[in-house]
């Protein structure tokens, strides 16, 4: 399959502080890639560059013109009703029917005409996903979109992202620091360290994935090892 994203020799420095070092990365069309790493390893910087929000870079980056993003906080405009937020920035007059279809897809069609302030965290994050997907992106960038959600809601929204990805077939780059989340969702997991892709892992497990499968557990152990996290849980229930 053709590549959706091609990154060659990408460098980015902030005030002489190099954050990305000659980074190379390809993402295939429709591929789900998760990007793991400690805070400050440059993963969010990479995502911002792919989003086109940061252009002071060295090297070459090729991305689809049609791309959108969802962030850790939903970043909805509080003065626009939910449905207007969904179709914000689309050409032409605000199309309510389109917005309602997108909201129905993420399961909150009934909240179309409320103010964003009245939504719960999970609902707001769903709106943010609807806003990203209504643009029919070829590349969807997700910057820790589940990070601020409680555990129960997070599981549900992760499930939703998996479904939406299979339906839309867009390439996804998910930035996260949650190893299990990466393994549950992605085709390929990258571990970033000091501005480079330090490790790469292809996840060949059947979907939907089982957290307790031995293959899953062993992949998780490898990722944690790469991240420099060693877990010894002797006698402590997790």
């Amino acid at each position: 399959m053709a590549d959706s994203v091609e990154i060659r020799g990408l460098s980015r420095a902030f005030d002489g502080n190099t954050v990305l070092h000659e980074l190379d990365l390809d993402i295939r069309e429709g591929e789900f890639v998760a990007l793991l790493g400690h805070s400050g390893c440059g993963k969010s910087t990479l995502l911002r560059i792919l989003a086109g929000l940061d252009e002071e870079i060295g090297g070459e980056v090729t991305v689809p013109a049609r791309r959108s993003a969802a962030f850790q906080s939903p970043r909805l405009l509080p003065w626009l009703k939910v449905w207007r937020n969904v179709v914000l920035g689309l050409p032409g007059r605000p199309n309510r029917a389109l917005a309602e279809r997108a909201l129905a897809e993420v399961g909150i069609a009934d909240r179309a005409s409320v103010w964003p302030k009245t939504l719960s965290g999970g609902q707001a994050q769903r709106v943010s996903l609807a806003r990203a997907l209504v643009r029919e992106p070829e590349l969807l960038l997700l910057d820790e979109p589940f990070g601020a959600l409680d555990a129960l809601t997070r599981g549900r929204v992760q499930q939703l992202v998996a479904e939406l990805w299979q339906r839309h077939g867009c390439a996804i780059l998910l930035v996260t620091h949650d190893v299990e989340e990466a393994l549950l969702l992605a085709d390929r997991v990258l571990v970033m360290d000091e501005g480079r892709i330090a490790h790469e892992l292809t996840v060949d497990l059947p979907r939907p994935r089982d957290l307790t499968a031995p293959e899953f557990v062993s992949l998780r152990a490898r990722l944690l090892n790469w991240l420099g996290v060693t877990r010894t849980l002797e006698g402590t229930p997790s």
Partner: protein
Amino acid sequence: MTTHSPPLPTTLDKPARITIRGTAKTGGRVTIPRSVRRAAGPVGLVLLWFLTSATGVLPESVLASPVDVLKQAVELTRNGELPSAIAASGRRAATGFLIGATIALSLSLLAGLFRLGEDVIDSSMGMFRAIPWVGLIPLFIVWFGIEETPKIALVALGVTYPLYFNIYGGIRSTDSQLVEAARMMGLGRLGLITYVILPSALPGALVGLRYALSTAWLALVFAEQINADAGLGYLMSNAQQYFRTDVIVLCLVVYALLGLACDFAVRILSRRLLTWRANFEGEA
């Protein structure tokens, strides 16, 4: 490491358990409504004013009785002096306000939206603000004479500062994360200004508007001391010459009422424009 923790007599002396006694009303007791209690102060003061005037403790040369003030209000309304004075003052306030608001809006947009505008305008505004604007009256008289122009200019000046600083501050406090997200969703420069920057500056702008309107009336009071031949200030300085404290008090009351009316209007406006901030559960 071993530490010798001192004895904690205070905790030891305290009883181990305490009882929390409920203060919730159990009904049956008559309570005075809050609005009545709040009105009691002002009403009491007016009553005191009336009583001291009626008994002669407060002579009319110091302060006219509320009854006289009311009589003057009726009298001056009937012969048309008060309405025409209010109209003249209102015209000045409105003209000055519109000019000041236009200047403030233009400057704050230029300073808020463009780096060059900020560099040129904001430091200058900071400098001019240090000058007490009331102190400019003599200069305004030299420049504009003693007709309407210096009065309107003073109101405009008083209005400009609070509006400018609040709108500019509102624009600059726009959440950069929202700007980023909106850019990502394909909004151009104009779209960003319309959908992100101006709405987020609105709450600040409305606060500025309240300040600006109260300053407008204040500036008017000062301005109308300059050789007025119409308006509330004229009525007041005339009354001063004849020691008519009833007319002076009446004019003060009218100034206060006009200020209150403006404030009320802005509050209604705020409530209508900022519905998105309220936490109601959507429309029915």
